Structure formats: structure tokens, C-alpha cells
């Protein structure tokens, strides 16, 4: 992570805000030493002197007092009061929020309902009421502004504390011997600083404005003491005739609040990890493509990838996620892609329809052929027509891919309508029911009217399969569709997928890390390692006679029930980093067979009959 200060400086607007603030603060701090005239000396003869006249740099006000002196002394006071109010509000609000979020239950109910009561009043009315009770005066205005802003902090901090207090690391720290107080101070609080600072920096400007507002109404600083609000208030009568008396303090307020807000926004962006990772950057609808001379698309039926390369352009060297992947899927076939996380299997699948988020992803080479066309060369409109229609996806977590606010029925009919307009609602409903029956859902009518959160994980996954089937696609790409499911449900879902491809001839790309699952459903298995295919062949051959050492290692560490094999055999080491791949075989560092020759040069994929293997030690049976 880049240091906070550097990230703020990199943000030009924030740096500008910081500069403004720094100047104002320095001026305020230096005020007593500037040798200014007393801000309260009245000299009626000089009233309404214009700026740069008769020794008054910024002119004089309606009582002939020096505006420059009053402005600097007033700014000093306004800043001090605003900051103090913000600090008090932050402290009190955070304490309430932390206590409510951490202890929950009754404490939470009591504290947060009290805060809600505070919020029920319009803030200025509440501030006025507090000042009315306590009497006018700067100190009371300060209290009023602080109280009014407590709820903002309390609610922000409570929300964050709730999440943190229920996280595993707090439970773990409790088991390490921490009591409640120690948990709060040493485990919860360090994770709240960012939230508190962001809330503080974005509200401090607002609080200075509010203090000025109260002074403007005559409820804050009392004459002859000046602060920015009271200066504005006193100059109000001469707004038309002598605008400089109100313009100058007005401008000062503007400069301060502007500076604080710019800096506050910059700090928020710098502190919020979601924003600093570019989370707000909108990704394009299609993955960026930057390739020269792609091979011509294949005319074979089904889906064919040829020489596909996808990389993530982050930092100095790109992460090579998919390297020269060639795969084919015939209609009705099930092709499994297996590998560890980070092997590039999901990126390969998402690249097919240009669904990898750009930036940072770029497809740098290869073609994806479907129906004689190169999908990578299609426009967004063409791709959108194909997405979900001819080529559909199923993802690991159906709760993330289903819309929480729409019923299952609405989502299913929407999926059908978006590709086939003009169906009557009765007809749509009939088809939706049929789809649910296809995925073995017992009472479709009830499920159609349900929202996704009301259904179990297995039901939801069946519904996302039904959605994928809504338009009779030719190809379904399923990315770890059963990983989040329990074994009995996994078996049900596998059975449905298997039946669909056999009965409807749907081509199925099944991505998984689990060789045991893959063994049950696939015709062919492609094993990926570090972005490359290291072995590809008919499932039987790959499982019974694995040719690549990595495939053998994967099989040895995937335990199966009923084999009484004892502990699975681990593969030592880990995947090589995708931005610093070794020159030779990428698996050599973890391979017991590796020799000097393996590490010297990149290893090519050797193709023999139906099998492809990327290992120099492999000798094809018929070679």
C-alpha cells in the first residue's frame, strides 16, 4: 500500500485543498505576531473604508474596525470552534457507535434509538433549541453543533463495528485471551480509524459552516468578539452599499470549507481500499482486445478457442493469466477445465464472451470461434445478443448472480424476453414452469413466486441453471457450479447438468478444481497450470493414465471416499507468480522428475492422437 501522504499528494485536487488549508492555518497561527491593530477598536470616522485605503488593507467595517484584523482573529476563532466541535462529535459519536455495535442487543437498541430521536429533528432547529436552552454564546454554539453531529458518527461507526465485532478474527482474539475492553481497544479500534478519519474529514467543513450559521443568527459569538459568522451577520445591513464588508468573510468561509472538503474527499479516496483499488472505475462492457493477426475462425460446429492469451495490465509487468490456450468443444460434449486457483481456468472461460473486467484485462492473442465467427471480433451488440442466448454462464455462487429484489419468475421471464420479444405473458409463464421442471424443481408455481433469498443454495443453483437454459443455448459454461453446495445437492445438480447435455445436446464447459467431480461428468479433461494447458485428453485416459506429472500429483492429493488410502499426498511448493514465470517448464520447481533440460526452454504441447501433454518426459504410446 502506498503511504497515505503520497496518495493524497498524487490527487491534485486534494493537494490543492491541503495547500489552501495550510495557508489559512499558518495565517491563523501567526495572527498574534503580525502586529495587527486591535480588532475591537472602534473608529467611527473611518467606517466603511474601502480596501487598500488609508492604511486599511482590507478596509473597515460599519464601526470603522479593521477588517483584516477582525478577519484573521475571527478565522482563528471559527476554525478552533469548528474543529473542537468536530472532535467532540467524533469522540462522542464513535464511542456510542462502538459500544452499540460491539455489545449489540439491548445496549445497541437503547443507544441507537436515542440517536434516532436526535436525528428526528431538523438539525438547525435542534441546534437552535439547544442554544435557546443554554443561552447564546460561542461555547454553547459549539456544544449545539457537536450534539447535532453526534448521530452521523454514531451510525457510521456502529455499522462498521457490527461487521468487525462479528468477524472471525475477533473471536480468535477472544480465544487468545482478550477480554471485552482489550478486544475493543486493540482489535476493533485499529480497524475503525479509517472510518472515523474519513467521517471526520468530510464533516469538519460542514461544522464550521454550522457554527458560522449560528453566529450569523447572533446565537454564537457575542459582540464585540468577531468570528466569520458574526462578521457576516453584522455586515448584512450594508450588503448592497458596502459589499466588501460581507464579501471578505464570505470568501474566507468559502476558501476554508472548499479546502477542507477537497482534502477530505482526497483522504477518503486514499483510505478507502475499495476506492484505491479502482473499484469505482467502470469496467467496459467487453474485455479490451489488443491482438495482431488473429488466426481465422474455425468452421467446425461447437466452440473453439485457438491460441488465446489474456493478461492483466497492472503495475510494471503484466500478469499473464492465460497463455496460448487452444481448446475445442463439440455439441453435446462436456469439457472439463481443472486446475488450482490462479491457474487461469476462470479467466479462460470468461474471455470467451469478453466478460473479463477491462481495465485491467486485455486479450492479446487468439480467436474464439463459434458458428464460423470470431467472437473476439464481434461488436458489443452482437456479443450481447449471444451472451445468455447462445452461450450461457453458470457461476459458483448463485446468490450473487440472481437479482435479490425480483422473484424467480420475473427473472426467468426477463431472461426469455430479452432475447425473444413478443411472447405473451401466459406463454412466458408456461415456459418458465417448464424450465423449472427441467431442473427437477418439485413445485414450480411456488418457486416462481419466491425471491432468491427464500430458497436453499441447491434450489438457487438449479434456478441459475434454468436461467441459463431459458433460451436453449448451444453452450453452457459452468464455473465451479457445485463447489458451494453440499455433496447430496452437488450430486443432484451434476445429474441435471449431465442429463441436459445428453438430452438437449448442449455443449458443457465444466470448470472445477475437484477431479473427482469432473471424473463423473466430463468427456474430456483439460488440466491448466500457470495459465497453460499442461494436459488435455479423453477423461478415461487422463484419469487412468495421467501423462503430466502435475496431473498425477493432483490425482494423488484428491482423496476419494472408500479407498482407505490414508492421508492424501501433498504437492510441495506453490504456483509460480504470473508476472515472473520461469523460463522453462512452469511446474519444474514442484516436480520430482524435473531435470536441467526442463528448466532451460519453454515446453511445447506435444499432440498425439487425442492427447496433448506439455512435458518433455512424456512418450506418446503410438509416437
Amino acid at each position, binding site marked *: 500500500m502506498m503511504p497515505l501522504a503520497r496518495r493524497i499528494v498524487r490527487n491534485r485536487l486534494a493537494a490543492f485543498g491541503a495547500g489552501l488549508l495550510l495557508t489559512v492555518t499558518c495565517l491563523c497561527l501567526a495572527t498574534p505576531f503580525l502586529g495587527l491593530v486591535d480588532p475591537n477598536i472602534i473608529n467611527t470616522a473611518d467606517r466603511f473604508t474601502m480596501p487598500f485605503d488609508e492604511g486599511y488593507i482590507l478596509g473597515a467595517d460599519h464601526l470603522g474596525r479593521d477588517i483584516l484584523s477582525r478577519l484573521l482573529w475571527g478565522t482563528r476563532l471559527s476554525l478552533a470552534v469548528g474543529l473542537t466541535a468536530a472532535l467532540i462529535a467524533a469522540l462522542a459519536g464513535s464511542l456510542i457507535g462502538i459500544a452499540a455495535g460491539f455489545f449489540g442487543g439491548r445496549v445497541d437498541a437503547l443507544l441507537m434509538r436515542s440517536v434516532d430521536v436526535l436525528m428526528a429533528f431538523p438539525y438547525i432547529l435542534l441546534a437552535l433549541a439547544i442554544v435557546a436552552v443554554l443561552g447564546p454564546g460561542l461555547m454553547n454554539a459549539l456544544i449545539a453543533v457537536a450534539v447535532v453531529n453526534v448521530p452521523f458518527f454514531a451510525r457510521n461507526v456502529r455499522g462498521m463495528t457490527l461487521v468487525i465485532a462479528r468477524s472471525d478474527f475477533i473471536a480468535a482474539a477472544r480465544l487468545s485471551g482478550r477480554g471485552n475492553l482489550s478486544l475493543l481497544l486493540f482489535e476493533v479500534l485499529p480497524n475503525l480509524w479509517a472510518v472515523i478519519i474519513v467521517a471526520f474529514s468530510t464533516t469538519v467543513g460542514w461544522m464550521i459552516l454550522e457554527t458560522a450559521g449560528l453566529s450569523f443568527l447572533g446565537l454564537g459569538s457575542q459582540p464585540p468578539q468577531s468570528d466569520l459568522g458574526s462578521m457576516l451577520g453584522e455586515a448584512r445591513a450594508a450588503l448592497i452599499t458596502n459589499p466588501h464588508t460581507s464579501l471578505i468573510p464570505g470568501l474566507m468561509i468559502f476558501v476554508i470549507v472548499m479546502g477542507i472538503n477537497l482534502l477530505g474527499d482526497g483522504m477518503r479516496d486514499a483510505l478507502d481500499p475499495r476506492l484505491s483499488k479502482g473499484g469505482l472505475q467502470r469496467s467496459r462492457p467487453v474485455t479490451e482486445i489488443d491482438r495482431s493477426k488473429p488466426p481465422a475462425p474455425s468452421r467446425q460446429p461447437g466452440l473453439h478457442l485457438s491460441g488465446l492469451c489474456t493478461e492483466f495490465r497492472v503495475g510494471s509487468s503484466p500478469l499473464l493469466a492465460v497463455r496460448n490456450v487452444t481448446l475445442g468443444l463439440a455439441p453435446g460434449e462436456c469439457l472439463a477445465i481443472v486446475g488450482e486457483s490462479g491457474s487461469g481456468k476462470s479467466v479462460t472461460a470468461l474471455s470467451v464472451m469478453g466478460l473479463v473486467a477491462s481495465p485491467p484485462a486485455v486479450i492479446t492473442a487468439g480467436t474464439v470461434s463459434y458458428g464460423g465467427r470470431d467472437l473476439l471480433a464481434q461488436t458489443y451488440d452482437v456479443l450481447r445478443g449471444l451472451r445468455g442466448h447462445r452461450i450461457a454462464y453458470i457461476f459458483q455462487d448463485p446468490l450473487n448472480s440472481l437479482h435479490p429484489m425480483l422473484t424467480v419468475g420475473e427473472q426467468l421471464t426477463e431472461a426469455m424476453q430479452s432475447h425473444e420479444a413478443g411472447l405473451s405473458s401466459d406463454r412466458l409463464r408456461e415456459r418458465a414452469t417448464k424450465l423449472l421442471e427441467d431442473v427437477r424443481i418439485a413445485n414450480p408455481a411456488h418457486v416462481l413466486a419466491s425471491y432468491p433469498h427464500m430458497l436453499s443454495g441447491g434450489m438457487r443453483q438449479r434456478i441459475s441453471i434454468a436461467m441459463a437454459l431459458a433460451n436453449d443455448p448451444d453452450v453452457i459454461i459452468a464455473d465451479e457450479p457445485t463447489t458451494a453446495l453440499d*455433496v447430496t445437492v452437488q450430486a443432484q445438480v451434476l445429474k441435471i447438468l449431465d442429463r441436459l447435455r445428453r438430452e438437449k445436446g448442449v455443449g458443457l464447459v465444466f470448470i472445477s478444481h475437484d477431479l473427482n467431480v469432473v471424473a463423473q461428468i466430463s468427456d474430456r479433461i483439460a488440466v491448466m497450470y500457470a495459465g497453460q494447458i499442461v494436459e488435455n485428453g479423453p477423461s478415461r485416459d487422463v484419469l487412468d493414465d495421467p501423462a503430466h506429472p502435475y496431473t498425477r500429483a493432483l490425482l494423488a492429493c484428491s482423496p476419494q471416499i472408500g479407498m482407505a488410502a490414508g492421508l492424501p499426498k501433498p504437492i510441495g511448493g506453490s504456483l509460480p507468480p504470473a508476472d515472473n514465470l520461469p523460463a522453462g517448464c512452469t511446474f519444474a520447481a514442484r516436480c520430482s522428475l524435473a531435470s536441467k533440460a526442463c528448466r532451460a526452454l519453454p515446453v511445447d504441447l506435444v499432440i498425439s492422437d487425442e492427447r496433448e501433454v506439455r512435458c518433455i518426459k512424456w512418450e506418446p504410446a503410438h509416437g
Partner: protein
Amino acid sequence: MAEAMVTARDLNKSFAQKRLSILKPRQYLHAVKNVSLEIARGETFGVIGESGCGKSTLARMMVGLHGPDSGVIRFAGRDAASLSAHERHGMVQYVFQDPAGSLNPRKTIRQILATPLKLLRGLGKQETRERLDEIMRAVNLPLEALDRFPHEFSGGQAQRICIARALLAEPDIIVLDEPVSALDVSIQAQILELLADLKEKFDLTYIFISHDLAVVEGFCDRVAVMYFGEIVEVTGSRSLFSGARHPYTRLLAHTAPRRGDDILAEADGELPDPLNPPKGCAFRARCSKSSDICATINPGLKTTNAGSDVACHFADED
């Protein structure tokens, strides 16, 4: 059986649900029902079952993260309720499923690992440093790792750190809550191997929670199968696949994927509504053997002829 390290008698835990309306009575979700078990010193005891079966609630009750509504837990004969939090954490530790989520992102590994040493073991600075170096070697992590932050580690490495933290409390028992489920298969095997080594080295008793029968079969000595909050079978892990007596255990064992087998699946099977639990045997709606008696009488765990404990009216038939 050797001296029991852990005994639980009739544990119950339910959670109050959010009230849907002030007029309706508050509903309770009964997560763990009448669970009793006995675990010997040095044993690796598996608890398996599908999501929502109450296995994690049971695990959390063991370490005191949840208090039971009723029932007794004993560690080496001492009533857990009579132990102070410090005594208890010094006897039983916990390893979470999500290694990254159980490490405070704002703390270095050294700070995280020093906490149990300081608070539970009362060690000084010098001793702490020595123990940290020692433990890092024991879990095969480089010493430099001590001064890094959690996000700099892969899942497997983070899980080694979590295991190290549990070990530093010098417990007799470690509850492992799906410790390898979030990891890649190759890393799973590494962690299982490490856990097996550490068990020998530090003379530990494990309670191993998992949904993966294949892992449990290879790693555990005995297994309890949970369904809908209850233990339905306790058996030797080697006989999970071939010797299971409860129809639910059989279902689990036979739907787990095996290379070379066809996909075996029930036509349709859903858990009963936890807020509206069925009478009698909870599994009966999914069971081919179910008869009248199942609808009225909950079978309860009984020792079968084969020696395992099974909660089924037909456990001794075939």
C-alpha cells in the same frame, strides 16, 4: 477406551429468530439437539454433516464462543462451566475455516501470535521471541513472516499461522472447523499432513469439523454424523463408506463423487424447515425405510450389533 478428554452430555443450543411481528411469538431455531459424545485423549474425532446441520454451533460451544442452553461439557473430567475463560482457552483452541478472515488485517503476525503467549501463558519478551521462532519452524514458515501483515500470505500460509496461534496457547484439544475447506486440494494435503505431525509432536486431541467425507475418512479415527442438529451415527471413520448403518450416512457416502462411478443422486431431497421441525425422525422424509414408527418416535442413538452408535429404528436390519 482410554481416559475421556472431552465428554459432552445432552447439549442443546437454540437461537432466537428476529420477530416477524410483535403479535407473533418469537421463534427459536434449534441448532443443536441433545448431543452427547465422548472423545479419548489423543483421538482425532470427526464431525460431519451438511451446511445447517449444527456442526459449527457444536464446535463453537466446545471452545466457549457459544454457551449451551443446557447440557454439560467436560475436559479431562473438569466441568467447562467451572473453568475461567483463561483456563478454558488454555485447554481448548480453535482453528477457523477462513484463515484470512481470522487474522486481524491491521496487525503483524508477530503481534497476533504474541497475544496468546502474553495473555494466556504470561510470557515475557525474551521468552515470547524464542517461542515465536520455535513455532514458525514447527509450522514450516520462514521467520521473516513474523513481521508481515496477514494480506501478504496465501490461504495455505495463513492457515499455518492460525494453527500456530492455536498451538501457542498450549492446549490439549484443538477444534478444527473446516480447516482445509477453503484451500486448493494440493494445499489441503499439505495442511492435513502438518496437522497430523503436530498432533504427534504436541500430544493433541482433535475435533475435526468437515463436510468432506473423503478427507474425514483418511484423517480421523472416529466420526459423528450430524443431521438437523442431532448426531445420527458415531462410527469408525474407516467404515464410513462400507459399514455405515444410518441411511443418511449411506446417502452422504454414496453421493460423494468417486472417479469411475456414475453420478448417484437422490431424486429430490431438502432439509426439513428448522423453524418447524418434524416429529419423530428428522430424516424420514428422505428415507426409503421410513415407516409409521419413524413419524412418531425419535429413535435416539443406540449401540448396534456392529458396535457403532446409530439413531435409526432399523439400524440392525439390512
